[in-house]
């Protein structure tokens, strides 16, 4: 299920503005890769190129290749809708569908992709909610609206929704930045469990979080405001935080800028 991502020569634009420049990297399957870097360095933009969400933004445009195992996501016959189905995403702010119940939220992706019997849906929803460590908290109120949950629960609901369709890759765009410390801890634990099944890429502003949850860390930076963001280095998390090979990485991690 979990697949390897191989990016080569990828640049992304907003209209005429180049947001990220010529990024190449490999993301290993069944691991957590964290993206860190100062604001505006393009790490979120880069993340959104991995499931072709970037081109949804007005003026958004991408050059380069993203290989998922042996399939180029930007190949000419590839359907972006199918890509997003294969590469799941969790957003900065929890965004359950406000008009749907908890159950329907988790089943939403499944219902798009074909017919399931009620019993099959029940089973997958339960499996996904358990996978997101949310089952015990919501099993008695599956028919209540998802917007009635706490922020941390909502975010786990979104994770359950994303993993219900069993994607190959799970992208997380600062999934904890809107949460309190306890909910954050719950999500971080969950990420540790999920990586046994999925390839996970997480963008985070919080370097401690990157150090805690990720196996590999990529550091992004930009030369100046208005310049495109670049990948500075990608290495094992331990190495990035103890002995990075680029001076800028060390400066950023030790808090000298950003």
């Amino acid at each position: 299920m979990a697949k390897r991502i191989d990016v080569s020569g990828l640049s992304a634009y907003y209209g005429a503005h180049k947001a990220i420049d010529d990024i190449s990297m490999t993301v290993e399957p069944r691991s957590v890769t964290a993206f860190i870097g100062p604001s505006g360095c393009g790490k979120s933009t880069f993340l959104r190129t991995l499931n072709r969400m970037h081109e949804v933004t007005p003026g958004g445009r991408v050059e380069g290749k993203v290989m998922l195992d042996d399939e180029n996501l930007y190949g000419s016959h590839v359907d972006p809708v199918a890509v997003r189905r294969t590469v799941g995403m969790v957003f900065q702010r929890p965004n359950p569908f406000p008009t749907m119940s908890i159950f329907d939220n988790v089943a939403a992706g499944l219902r798009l992709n074909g017919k399931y019997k009620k019993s099959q849906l029940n089973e997958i929803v339960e499996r996904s909610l358990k996978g997101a460590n949310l089952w015990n908290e919501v099993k008695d109120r599956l028919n209540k609206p998802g917007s009635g949950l706490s922020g941390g629960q909502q975010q786990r609901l979104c994770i359950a929704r994303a993993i219900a369709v069993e994607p190959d890759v799970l992208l997380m765009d600062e999934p904890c930045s809107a949460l309190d410390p306890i909910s954050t801890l719950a999500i971080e634990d969950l990420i540790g469990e999920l990586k046994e099944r999925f390839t996970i890429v997480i963008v985070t502003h919080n370097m401690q979080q990157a150090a805690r949850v990720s196996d590999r860390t990529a550091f992004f930076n930009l030369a100046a405001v208005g310049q495109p963001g670049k990948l500075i280095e990608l290495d094992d998390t331990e190495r990035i935080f103890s002995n990075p090979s680029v001076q800028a990485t060390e400066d950023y991690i030790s808090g000298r800028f950003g």
Partner: protein
Amino acid sequence: MVTTTTSPPPKGPDTEARRSKSTARPGDKIFLGLSRGSGITLLVIMAAIAIFLTYRAALAISKDEANFLTTSEWNPAGNPPVFGIAVLAFGTIVSSVIAMIIAVPVAIGIALFISHYAPRKLAAPLAYVVDLLAAVPSIIYGLWGAIFLVPYLDGLNKWLDEYMGWTYIFDKASDGLARNLFTVGILLAIMILPIITNVTREVFLQVPKMHEEAALALGATRWEVIRMSVLPFGRSGIISASMLGLGRALGETMAVAVVLSPSFVISGHLLDPGGGTFAQNIASKFNEANEFGRDALIASGLVLFAITLLVNGAARWIIARRKEYSGAAA
């Protein structure tokens, strides 16, 4: 122009604390009195409308020799006076229903076109034009409808009669121009289209981006995104916009008066000329009516007033009921 029904609570200052202070000054007292007085004036006007219309209507109905609700005749000047609203109620409701059946889906379509489908360079000017169209006076729609639309719909009427005549409603029993309830319905649909589109579009644009992205990220097509996040979020907005349009259609006077060739017969054959609506009947009969006849017209106007109140009330009730799902909390 847009009536925001789910306006956020005013971020007004803490008035409790200030009210005690403000009562001390004469300037404040006068100003508060003036503004409160204006609010009360508004209430008084609304009450007066209800009271005086009811009073004059009662004068007329008490002398009506026929059942006011079920009679399909309008002859208040006769001896004895006989008049009833059956034809008017039928015509008003039928033409408005036709208008809604056509206008609501099309308006949702245009609103989606502007908010989600049109190229960005086209969307903004288009929204502006729709805004302007909402301001076109109804008499001009009427003039255009009578002189241009009616002949154009002639062919469509014949065609409907020929192929859909078996449905009864499209059976055209009598000849004549297309000055019928069906044409009125189409014209009303064109007239209320801009209003419904405007309000709906604004609601669609307010759909939080994160809800749309949630659907996108699950691998939804554009239509599925709209179905999963845009339409559910916009539902109460669509309902209130439709009700606003319905209110306009029910009360529309001049366009109907100009296009319809009225008669006091209830007929299910929508393509036959004839029928009438409350507002149209008032406008057409007013000039020839004596004082009692005017009271009779006021009585029919009171019914129209009551119907529009009910429609507006229903809209508000639906919106209030759906508020918990509006997504504002998320």
